[in-house]
């Protein structure tokens, strides 16, 4: 019966930069985290716009002016790319979870596929909507 021992767990070290030169695998990984977390900004703007539409015409005019301004365009276009990047990176994780695509060469190719694919899908979405 082992006693429960409290241990001071170390933080995961941030490797890119001081210890590791930037590589496709590490950069495409950290971008997944950055895009996923940054999406909260576009989500809050979109939900605020939805709330305003449900509240009153006057409030909608305010939120809609912000959402369709240069600032709104910047946030939503950035979020659109972030969604597609995170989407493709997520598919890569699902592939990796099956044990496939782990070879360095393949992983690097997948990294390029995510970056190029996210730009292409962003452009296609912008054309369609």
């Amino acid at each position, binding site marked *: 019966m082992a006693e429960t021992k409290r241990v001071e767990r170390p933080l*995961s070290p941030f490797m890119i930069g001081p210890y590791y030169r930037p590589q496709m695998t590490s950069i495409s990984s950290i971008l997944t985290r950055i895009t*996923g*977390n940054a999406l909260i900004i576009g989500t809050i703007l979109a939900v605020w716009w*939805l709330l305003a539409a449900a509240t009153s015409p006057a409030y909608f005019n305010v939120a*809609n002016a912000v959402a*369709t301004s240069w600032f709104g365009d910047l946030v939503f276009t950035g979020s659109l790319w972030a969604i597609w990047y995170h989407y493709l990176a997520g598919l890569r994780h699902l592939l990796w979870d099956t044990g496939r695509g782990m070879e360095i060469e393949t992983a690097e190719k997948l990294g390029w596929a995510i970056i190029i694919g996210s730009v292409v899908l962003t452009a296609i979405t912008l054309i369609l909507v």
Partner: protein
Amino acid sequence: MRYLTARKRAEGKGASHTGTEHHWYMTVSSVALAFLVPTFLYIFGRTLGQPLEEVIATFSRPFPAILTALVVVIGMRHFAKGAQMMLEDYTQGSLRKGLVILTYSISYAVTAVALYALVKLALIGFLFANMAH
């Protein structure tokens, strides 16, 4: 004292104390979002920039309303748990706890606001449709 061996107590739990539950939730929600998000992007992108009447008309239809609700509910849980993973990587102690609680709170608040707005838009759309007759 519980009559469990140390191995039995540790098995499948790992550093998170909940085993692979977190990872499995991210897997399940990511697959759900992969199916939901493209159509949502199309509907939202088409509606953004339209006059208020069009916005109400779109989001009071069942498909866009239910799809948006699913994207927000699943998306915000996926976000909260993903952001929690980042916070657990880079912060410790009380700061970590505080930031995880804040992240969860923001996610639940955004979800509640979105669902409130969707319900209200559906009701407004229903009233418009019935006043027209």
